[in-house]
């Protein structure tokens, strides 16, 4: 087990470029409001896909559908990892077991645990010890626990959080908490990592660090990443492809360059690059 862990954080069995996640005609309603309308999207193995769009466009709703927190009224979400899994109606913990990990827009760490315990709780799906051995904490249970402790140290090393290992998460700064939350998702050894605004509310130095970690995870470990982000500089720099949402609909998709030039996207979200008052031109 330990050698398998240290080699990679990625548990996907697909080759780079193969379709990993397929979203087909997704529709999500809250009462009479369509939060998502006919969204179709494909995510390929080992790419970084960014989802952008104005506030309320349905970006987080889309992630929530993927991780099973919302269940769409129409459409299909299919996940490929050694075999095909239709996960439209799966429960969150079942989807987690397929290797889909995520972080949240508002930090949802386990506040009273230490950083270490938060990371270890990310290993939950890989731990096998039964209840009785856990209570004995002897032999196999202890060995398993120590293996995971060692594995988690790799994530601590990767995210450069050695100094705060034993600290309670609630006492950490916002930027560090965001980092720990990404670490907890990584501890799941994800095949697909969903990051909901990993850089929101950070200063430029913290953003650079975070962007570097995202690239490390993607390039060194080959983890597929879907991220929501508002900082266009970061998005254009690090993503391979971008999908643009507006009012629950997908209005554009493509490489950063294609999206930058897409007139519909400029109209809805990016604004004119050279106009000092993008709103005034519309009046």
């Amino acid at each position, binding site marked *: 087990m330990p050698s398998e862990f240290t080699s990679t954080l990625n548990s996907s069995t697909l080759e780079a470029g193969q379709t990993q996640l397929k979203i087909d005609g997704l529709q999500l309603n809250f009462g009479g409001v369509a939060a998502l309308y006919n969204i179709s999207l494909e995510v390929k193995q080992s790419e970084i896909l960014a989802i952008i769009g104005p506030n309320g466009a349905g970006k987080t709703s889309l992630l929530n559908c993927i*991780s*099973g*927190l919302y269940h769409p009224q129409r459409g299909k979400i299919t996940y490929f990892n050694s075999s095909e899994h239709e996960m439209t109606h799966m*429960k*969150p*913990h079942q*989807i*987690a*077991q397929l290797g889909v*990990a*995520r972080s*949240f827009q508002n930090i*949802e*760490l*386990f*506040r*009273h*645990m230490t950083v270490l*315990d938060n990371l*270890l*709780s*990310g*290993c*939950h*799906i890989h*731990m096998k*010890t039964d*209840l009785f051995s*856990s*209570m*004995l*904490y002897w032999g196999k*249970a*202890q060995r398993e*626990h*120590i293996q995971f*402790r*060692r594995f988690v*140290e790799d994530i601590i090393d990767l995210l450069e959080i050695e100094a705060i290992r034993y600290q309670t998460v609630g006492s950490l700064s916002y930027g560090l908490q965001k980092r720990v939350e990404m670490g*907890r998702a990584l501890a*799941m050894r994800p095949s697909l990592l969903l990051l909901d605004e990993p850089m929101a509310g950070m200063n430029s130095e913290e953003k650079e660090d975070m962007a570097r970690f995202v690239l490390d995870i993607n390039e060194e470990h080959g983890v597929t990443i879907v991220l929501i982000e508002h900082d266009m500089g970061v998005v254009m720099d690090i993503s391979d492809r971008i999908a643009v949402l507006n009012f629950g609909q997908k209005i554009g998709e493509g490489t950063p360059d294609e999206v930058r030039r897409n007139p519909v996207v400029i109209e809805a979200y990016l604004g004119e690059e050279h106009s000092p008052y993008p709103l005034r031109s519309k009046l």
Partner: protein
Amino acid sequence: MISGIFHSTYEQDMALRHTHAQKIRLAILIVFLLVFPFLANRYYLTLANQIGIAVIGAIGLNILVGYTGQISLGQGGFMAVGAYTAGILTARMGMPWWASTLVACFVTAGVGAAFGLPSLRLKGLYLAIATLAAQEIILWVVTHWKAVTGGVDALVVPNPELFGIRMNTDFNFYWLVWALVILVTFASVNLFRTRFGRAFIAIRDQDIAASVMGVDLFKYKLLAFAISSFWVGLAGALTAHYRSIVTWERFTIDVSVLYLAMIIIGGLGKITGSYLGAIFMTLLPAVLSNLGRVVKGVFPGVEGIIPFIQQATFGLVIILFLILEPEGLNKIWKNIKDYFRLWPFSY
């Protein structure tokens, strides 16, 4: 003075006790527990046995309320399930006391899990009301199902014996109950070093995040109810065998509130807190009544109102704790340790 704790292996890093001071404190505690029964008179032994039972019950409740965040007002009811199951099996069917105790634990775990079913939909105060219903339903069944429980009449349980030795004398029971306390502590502490305990805390702190990490909320909430009730059932069964008499009055809503007060005053989500709370809440009434006896000699008129003063003091202490040290006795104990670790320097 120590400058820091440095580990060179992961085994050391995951150990429960790191410093000499911690190990020495544990050793002192064990020696004290071993020597105590030979020095104490019957009164203190009775108190020690009561504390032992309370510690087991408080650890059980703390697993559910303190660690998993599922507020329960059903403690008294679950203890009743344990006590009556053990009592009935031994008194009516002649099962040995240890076997009936074990069965009682499993039965209580099952009943606890069944009453935990609403926890998937209900949180916080709403769940508290649902567990209050459990308390009332269980007591209603106990007092009305005459054929089995004997209704409101006391159920007399034969004296427990082991190899011809009577176990419920204060001295003998002391060894039994404190051995079980140590067993329960050992199992519970270990539980929270592994994925089960961590899943419980995760549910308490952030249940949505927990489910996204792969924790099956329904399964783990029920498991928390079951494990918690298992210990609570043990506390109930021990009460039955220790007292030799089981009556419904011992398991009213007051008991539920008393145990909640124990873990709040002791420290929520801390095993040590369960100990401190159980000791405090068992000794407080004893100290107050002794105090009353002393005061009675000085102020003769005060005798009639002493029970009320006791009740009021009880309430006052709880309120003061909630205001002054919401994290409970466990935090005070931690502050003391921190102070002496750096002594004589202030930081």
